Structures are given as C-alpha cells and as structure tokens.
C-alpha cells in the first residue's frame, strides 16, 4: 500500500524501494540525493516510521504501508501541519530535500511531540539541505510541534 492505495508489481530482487516508488508507483516527489544513505532526500514512512527508501528493498515493503509526501495532505488538499509550517517558515528553497525532510520531521514529532531546538537538529542530522542552512527548517518543525500534530489530516494513513 502506498499512500493508502495498493500498488502491485513484479520486481527485481535488488530493486530499491525509492526506485519502486518513482518508477512503478509513479510517485516522483521522493528524491535520490546520494548513494550512501547519508542525505535523507528519499525519506518515507514505512508502517509509520521514517526510513531512507534508498536503503530498503522494494520487496521488503511487500504488504506494508508506505507514506510519501504525496500522501500527507488531506483528501481535500488541505496541507498537513508540517507542510503548512514549512511554507509559513520558508523551510524550503530548491525543494529537492523537502519531501524527505518533511517526512523525517513528521516522524520526529511522532516520536517526540515537544522537542527542543537541539532535539530537532539532532533528529534531522540524517537529512541534508544545502539551501536553507537548516535555520527555517528547524523553525518549521518547532512551529508544527507548537501547533500539535494530533489534528493532522492524513495521519490515519498509519
């Protein structure tokens, strides 16, 4: 299941989840930014927990729930609080790290709903951004925490 909808395909053993999402599922928001599991651009939720989808085989996701940034907004298009916060705080520039950064941030707040700034920075250490200097990303995550994610649309995906 990807973003609540079934996606079925016969895949090579070695196919990475990120390539499955981009090619088989046609969901291109999730990006590949490195080849060493360092940058986090490919971060998605697997059964509600963040994973780097470049380091998960597509076959390992068989029968599990995958959520990408395309599945985060509500069915009526209402932005998820994290998406809203990234926009309000200018937490993105070129946008390439953004889908992964947003998913990592969603996961971070699920684990720690009220993080300090240092905890946000530590939680996002595995996600590189080259544009923002992280300043506004950190502010966005703190703002989303302030707002509370409980009322978030799309959370039922879990």
């Amino acid at each position, binding site marked *: 299941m990807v973003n609540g909808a079934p996606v079925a395909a016969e895949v090579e053993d070695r196919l990475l989840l990120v390539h499955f999402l981009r090619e088989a599922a046609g969901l291109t928001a999730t990006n590949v930014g490195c080849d060493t599991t360092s940058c986090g651009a490919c971060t998605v939720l697997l059964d509600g927990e963040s994973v780097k989808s470049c380091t998960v085989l597509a076959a390992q996701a068989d029968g599990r729930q995958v959520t990408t940034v395309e599945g985060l907004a509500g069915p009526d298009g209402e932005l998820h609080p994290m998406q809203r916060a990234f926009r309000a705080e200018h937490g993105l520039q*070129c946008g390439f790290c953004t889908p992964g950064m947003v998913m990592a941030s969603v996961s971070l707040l699920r684990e720690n709903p009220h993080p300090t700034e240092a905890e946000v920075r530590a939680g996002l250490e595995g996600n590189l951004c080259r544009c923002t200097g992280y*300043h506004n990303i950190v502010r966005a995550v703190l703002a989303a925490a302030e707002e509370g994610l409980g009322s978030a649309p799309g959370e039922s995906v879990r």
Partner: protein
Amino acid sequence: MSILGTRVVRTEDPRLLTQGGVYTDDLRIPELDGAARITFVHSPIAHARITGIDTGAALASPGVVAVLTAADMDDIPAGDGRPTAEPLLAADRVRYVGEAVAIVVTEQGYQGEDAAELVSVDYDPLPAVVDFDDALAGGTLLFDGTDSNVIRTGGEPAPPGAFDGCEVVVQRTFPNQRLAPLPLEGRAAAARWADGRLTLWASTQNAQLARDALAAAVGLDAAAVRVVAPDVGGGFGAKIATDRDTIIVAWAAKHLGRPVRWVETRNENLLGMVHGRAQRHTITIGGNRDGRILAYHLDIVQDAGAYPRGATFLPGLTQLMASGVYDLAYCGSAFRSVLTSTMPIGAYRGAGRPEATAAIERAVDLFAAEIGMDPAEIRRRNVVAPEAFPYTTPSGAVYDTGDYAAALEAVLDGAGYKELREEQARRRARGGPVQLGLGLATYVEITAGDGGGETARVVVDATGAVTVYTGSSPHGQGHQTAFAMLVTDQLGIPMDKITVIHGDTDQVPTGIGTFGSRSLQLGGTAVHQATIQVKDQAREVAAAMIEASETDLELDTATGIWQVRGDPDTALSWAEVAAQAGPAGLAADVEFRADSPTFPFGAHLAVVEVDTQTGKATLIRHVTVDDAGTVLNPVLAEGQRHGGIAQGAAQALLEEMRYDPEGNPLTSTLADYAAITATELPSFELLAMETPTSVNELGVKGIGEAGTIGATPAVHNAVIDAVAHLGVRHIDMPATPQRVWAAISEAKGSA
C-alpha cells in the same frame, strides 16, 4: 501600501510540498516515452594513456542499446585544437579520476550500471600531479605540446618598497581548500531528437546559455536547439556551465535517434561536477603599531584541476576584491593558475570573492594579533569611510554605496561583543577545557559583475491575468514570488493571477540566467521596467475607452481598477482594458543592462566553543549584517543569507574535497565528504541594514552569495581566537578537531 519590502510567503511552495518539484529525472512527458538510460564509464586513474577500449562484453549485457566512445563522435565539430582542449569523451588520455571515457545506453537504469562495469578500458598509467608545487615545477606535464602546467598568470609581485615605512609586516601562506558545491540534486539531463530539432531538458542555471553552448558543440543552429530547465534542485554556481556530460547526453539522443535520460549518482557528482575554491594564498600585510594598515599583497596559486575551466577567470575576481573593505595605501596581487590531475575548478557560491575575503580577513587578524590589538578595533581604524563612496579600489573596482563601519558596529552591538569578550576572559582565567572564540569578518563583494543584462516580457491578457517571461532562471531562490511582487506592486493585479515563465528557450529565447547574485537587480529590474511600460500602455487604452485625458486617470493598485480620478462610474478592470488593447495587446519587452555592478557588504561575528582536549570547535552563535541594498522580500533575502552562512561555516569547519598524492579522490561519497548538517549549526541572528544602490531603480544589490563570503572568515577567525591565548596564531581550513588539537599541542610544545 506597497507589497515591496513585506514578508510574503512563497507561491512556489504548495506544489513543492505536496507533489514535489519536477526535476529533470522526474519528467514523465510523452516526448521522453521510451527514453533509454545513459550510464557513464569513468576513468578510475588520475593520469594515463588509453591504449584500448573493448566494448564487446558490455554490448552483450542485458538491455544494452549501445556503448559509445569518442570514436563514435565523428558527427560533431572537432574541438578548437588548443593543446589544453578538454574533450567530450576522453579519447587517448585521461587526466583525472572521474573523467568520462564511454557511455552505456540501456533500456533501464540498473542495466546500465551492470554494463558499465563490463566496458574494458586499457590504461597505461602516467605520473599524477596533485601538489601545487609539483604542478608549478612542471616535472610532469599534463598536456603534450606545452612547456608548463601554468595556464594563466596575472598581476605582479609587490614592488620594491611597497612595505617600506611599515613598523610591522606579517607574511603567511595558507590554503583556501577545494570544496564540492553539492547541490542536493546533482546533474541530470534528458534529450530528444525529432523533426530536425534537438531538445535538452537539463538541470541548469541558464537555459539560454546552455542552448548556445549545446548548439555550438553538436554543430546545430541555435534555432534547432531547445533547452528546458525544469525545477532545478540547487546549483550554487556549479550548474552555470554546460558540462560535457550534458552535451554527450544530447548528442547521444541525436546520434541514436532515440530519447535518452541521464542522472548522475552522488559519487559521480562529487567526482565530476566542478569543484570550487582550491587556491593557495600568500598574504603580506604591513602597517603600524597604532593599528593603521598601510600595505597588503595577495599571491594566489589557483588549482585549475585537469582542464582550464573556471580557473581562467576566478583568480581575477579574487584579485579584483583583494583589498576588501579596507582603505589601503598599497594593495597588489598576483596569480598563477596551474593544472593538476584533479577535477576541474569552476564557480561555487561566491566564485573568487570568498577567497579574497578569506585571505584579507585572516591577514587583518594576523596583523592584529601581531600588534596586540582587538580585531574589532583594527577593522574600525581601517575600513573605507562612509563619505568616500563611490570608492575606487587599487584594483579598479568602484564600490557604489556602503557604510562598513556601521555594519561592523551593528554586529558588535547586536552580539554584545563587550560582554562576550568578558566571558572569554573569565573562561581563560578559569582555564577549563571549553574555551570561547570570537571571529569577525567585514566584507564587500561584487554582484552582477558579469556585465550582461537580463530580459523580461510582461503581458496582460484579456482575462486580466499576467504572464512574466524572464531570462533569469531560478533554482530555489523564489523568482516566481519575487517577480510577481514587482508586478502586483505596479499593476494591482493579485499575485495568484501572475504566472512567471522561465528556463525554456522556446518561450524565452533571450536571457542570461541566475548566477553571481544577479537575478533581482537585473532580471527584477527588467520585470519592473516592463511592468511600467505595460501600465503606460494600459493608461493610453483606458483613456481612449473613457474618453478622458491620460493625466486624469489613476490606477488603484489595491484593487487593480482604472478610473478617472474621483469618478468610480468610469471604473475599468484590467481585463476590460486589455480586451481593448488591439492586436498587440498589453505587452512590453525589456532588456535591462546596468551601468555597473553592485557591491553588497556586511559584517559577521561568529562565536565558537572549542574543546581544547579534543580540538572540536562548535559554532554556537552567528550574528550578521548583510546589506544588499533595498530588500524586496525579507523572507527570501533571509533565506539566502541562512543558506550562505551555512555553506560559509562549512568551509571553515568541515568541508574539503581531498585527493591523495596519486590523484585518488578521498572524499567521493557523502560518507566521506563532510557536508554540514543541522547539528553543526546554531540558529542565525540576522540584523537588518539597507543601503540602496543607485545602479538600478529598485535600489537592490545581490544577496545570494553574501552569507557565504562573510561566514567563512568569521568562523575561521573565531576558532583561532578561541585558542589564541594558548599560543596558536593560525590553523588551516577546515579547522577540524584534528587540526585544532594539533595546533594546540604544537603551541604547547614550543612554549
């Protein structure tokens, strides 16, 4: 009230946040249906002759469409014949690890990686040259037909007597290390040859320049080439040039008659996208014990990498900005650009100017340490006075506007400099392991220094909607928001009815692009001027419709309504006016060319803690003034500063692209290259200051690179300041824990 200067959140973002951008490798368009994948075969050796290439095994690999080498490229113009010419694909010699030797074209991506490993290239190794001094000595030459690895020189050594009369002269040599630009999206391209036209989709900062470069490279008229820049995931200067890899992709589409795609891996990106900086500086600074600096000379050795790319012009920018913010009786510089067996050097955020600033800001601190003066005080005593503008430097730059002392004082006040020095003194007195360091940099830089203009076309259609066509081409900066603000400010048409088109040479045939912090001051001014022309056209049309005098008409920019002043019965909407505008409609084309570049300036104060037991430096505060003239949208301007500061701090603390003596890259993945993360940075403290320029009517200068230029020397100086009391005078960048620890140990040993 004008929207200009207000905090407007970006109109780009909802799409980027919900569906993701459409970067080159995301394109799912009919033109690319059935596109084959290209995988490059790179040299694993820094310097070698190619004695043979066997493609047989690769051709037999599953899914392989073709394996192409230089021998297949007989359908394009030959190179220019210079001895140091850089080939598209290496034919008989490779000069750096990562140089492209062949391409494998496959049905699917994974097949390409398999097949690329089966291309057998026979290499006859030659000695590599990595060290600057070896390269300068020329014992091994990279190119036959040359007698030196030095490709360009400029400037002069300090003349005899230049430092006469100085009570103190300090000289020191230090590197400004090689960096990887590292946009999160690496290079990517897709191409299609159909109906006699070659279309290239590419991650580029300038579609029009790419079109011309591609047309020349493959031997087509520019009219037969279309270049489209989809969303671009960062560039930082490294996507200005049209790389050979991109040209090869486009050529392959034409050669094979089949659409193709290519996206590089991060490993390929670190090896094959231009690197930045890579200079070695020797500074000589002289002055008196009262703190007056009299003379400064900068000698630059520029590592060119294996082929002459940016190294031909980057040291010239360093020379131009060598004197920084200081009023010096003598300032001179000289450079030599020298080839080495490494990735060629190109523009990276700041491109020659951060190097100039790093050199003189380090030199000023070395001089201050020598005479025992506070780094803030020495800057106070030597910066160009506010009444001296326009100020012509010894290198011939004409600084337009500035107040360097005010920027410095603002940062000192904002940070609480006096209190920080007191805290530093307390920690030193206590002698604990964690010491405090304060680092200053006062800087000036040049933006829109390329001398080119920028285009804009503004059209109001019969629905009252606006389309802006700009030659400027964003890769994260927020052009759509910024340019729409300029239009709505003048026309009163809401932002959501304004579309900004860029990066497609069929829609915007003329333009330059986004680099050198040029977009708002050139592209924005062009949009502004075209918008005013459209408004003047509308006034004429509306006056005729109402049968009133143009001088009696007013446009309410809150509502976008034209009417005779004080007479609502005459009200006309933009749609009504545009519908009556005749066959040409309401449309204006402008190419704006500024009379001169602009010179943003500022001051940075970095506060670091250094654990003297481990050598680990942690940036805990960073306070800046970055004055780029009038601010259009503080949200965007601050974002540029944030990103710039992070990249600047990264150079001071962490990042370095390294090669071993045989030319093997040591930092070729993100597991090795120390890209800065959120944990290594604090939130930044930005102070506002706006000194408008008179070079354009918006009063704006460039903000894209300023943060990087100021941050590197501020953070670098702070680390050294933290351990200065232990006897440390200098530490090379990046000031890694190992280097800081070694400097402390060495100082203890010599004490």
